[in-house]
């Protein structure tokens, strides 16, 4: 009969358990160690180099700086436009003679929104908002043979004379008409039209020749 040392059975069980634990620990350590080593070659350097100083060439530095200056200039220009709209009661859009029935002239209205100026068949200005009434994109400036302008976002078409969107357009609301004034070179009002289309002044084209188109702050304040 073999003498069984009860302790040895318990010890063996304990040893196995310790071995399992040890094995797991060693595997864990090896796995994590290998991972850290490989990561340092694979992706860790990507993360760490992110924070290091960028080695820019002289040309790159010049380009970055000149682009920054251009952007600052653009921001300044936009803010100058805003300042002008705050301080002036009227702003020139274009000479009456330079208006075209086909290609609108973009300008910024008093509410800092894009707007367009065309000329009508009789030579009178057509001044409308260029902010599409569907979802706010800027409409194109080129009128087609039917006298319609297109919004590139969702292809709404608007009649430039009435501002009304053509049937089937996503936009349902007409482009608002803006009030304008024709002034001579002395600054005298020759003809004023409010946003509803009511005119005050002379409509004689001979007298209006050589005048300039302006937008007026008083009409924008009403709108705002």
């Amino acid at each position, binding site marked *: 009969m073999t003498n069984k040392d009860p302790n040895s059975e318990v010890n063996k069980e304990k040893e196995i358990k310790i071995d399992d634990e040890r094995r797991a620990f060693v595997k864990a350590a090896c796995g994590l160690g290998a991972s850290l080593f490989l990561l340092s070659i694979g992706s860790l350097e990507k993360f760490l180099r992110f924070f290091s100083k960028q080695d820019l060439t002289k040309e790159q530095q010049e380009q970055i700086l000149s682009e920054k200056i251009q952007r600052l200039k653009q921001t300044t220009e936009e803010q100058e436009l805003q300042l002008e709209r705050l301080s002036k009661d009227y702003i020139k859009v274009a000479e009456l003679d330079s208006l075209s029935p086909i290609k609108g002239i973009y300008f910024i209205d008093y509410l800092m929104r894009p707007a367009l100026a065309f000329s009508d068949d009789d030579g009178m200005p057509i001044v409308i908002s260029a902010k599409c009434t569907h979802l706010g994109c800027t409409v194109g400036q080129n009128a087609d043979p039917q006298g319609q302008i297109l919004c590139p*976002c969702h292809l709404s078409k608007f009649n430039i004379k009435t501002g009304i969107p053509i049937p089937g357009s*996503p936009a349902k609301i007409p482009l608002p008409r803006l009030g304008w004034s024709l002034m001579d070179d002395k600054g005298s009002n020759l003809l004023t039209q409010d946003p509803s289309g009511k005119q005050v002044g002379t409509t004689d084209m001979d007298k209006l020749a050589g005048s300039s188109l302006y937008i007026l702050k008083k009409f924008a304040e009403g709108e705002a």
Partner: protein
Amino acid sequence: MSDKKKGLKRLVEFMYDRLPMHKFNFEHIVLEKEVPVHRMSWAYYLGGLTLFFFMVQVVTGIFLLFYYQPTVSDAHASIEYITKYVNNGFFIRNLHTWSSSCMILCLVVHAITTFAMKAFAPPREMIWVGGAAMLILTFAFGFTGYLLPWHQIAVNATKVMLQSIEESGHYLPGFLSGVPHYMRELIQGGSVVGQATLSRFFALHVVILPLIVFGILAMHLLSVQLHGMSQGVDTLPKKTEKFFPFFILKDLIVWGVAFLGIFILAVCVPFESFYAFPLFQAYNALGATPEGIKPEWYFYFTYYPLELLPFWLVMIGMIVTGTVLLLTPWIFKNTSRRMLTIIAWAITAYLVITTLFGNVILELVKGVKS
């Protein structure tokens, strides 16, 4: 007992059942917890996967903060600087972009599968409500983050979506019609999308929303640990596995695979290559708008219906959906899992069709290419 005391007692019992802190011990959470094993067990990994992508977002977002400048004149340039000149800047930025999409995808699938498995049944209602809140907040993350690069598609798409809010004013009576306009200007910080908008979207995206989400997430995770995984199927599962260590081991493997997937995507495929390059040029407030302005893909489920259907119908649909989402545990309390699965499939079909084929449908119906 007075009515007031009865009400208080019911409230205390309700909170006690929903947040059983007495189970917050090592034995319950680590040693005893088991996870049912059945045909829907794969869905149990989705929550963890969403968490993983969220953590990637947080880490890469912090990295990007070192270089990003939240001003209208410098935002786009700082993003270009990160992409062109910062060492591995393109990789970090691309990782952030890809991870955001993956996170939202996992989150939506997680919500749908949780719904189908009726994991919102008592006492897990507050887990569902917290999850629904995080779903909405994640979309808010996407909305605010989309504006930060300040390129054409970012600004124009934001303008379009904010304009949609104001559109709803046309359908409201009397003095209420002005409320959407006020809300829009509150979100914008002014009458147009500009510096004020960028600053507040930056604050929301980087500080406010993360803080709120961390809080809700902590409660959500704590509740899940306390209650354990829901049964998920009608018949009692014959098999279970220990949450610790087996479920966690598998979860880790899933995270490993997800990490590899997103790493390879971030290294090899610029997210912006799926779109036309003019959309990523610097925004010009006074210039013409380029074609192809659309929100991010995860907003297509509202974007295309808005293009195709009457505005009021889509608005009502969204309000109803949002309300049902938050009140799901009570609305569907007595609905069978079979019915919930059918509804989940219908929701999935709607989301897949609008997201993948929305532009095709729009072209067919309206002849408009978007």
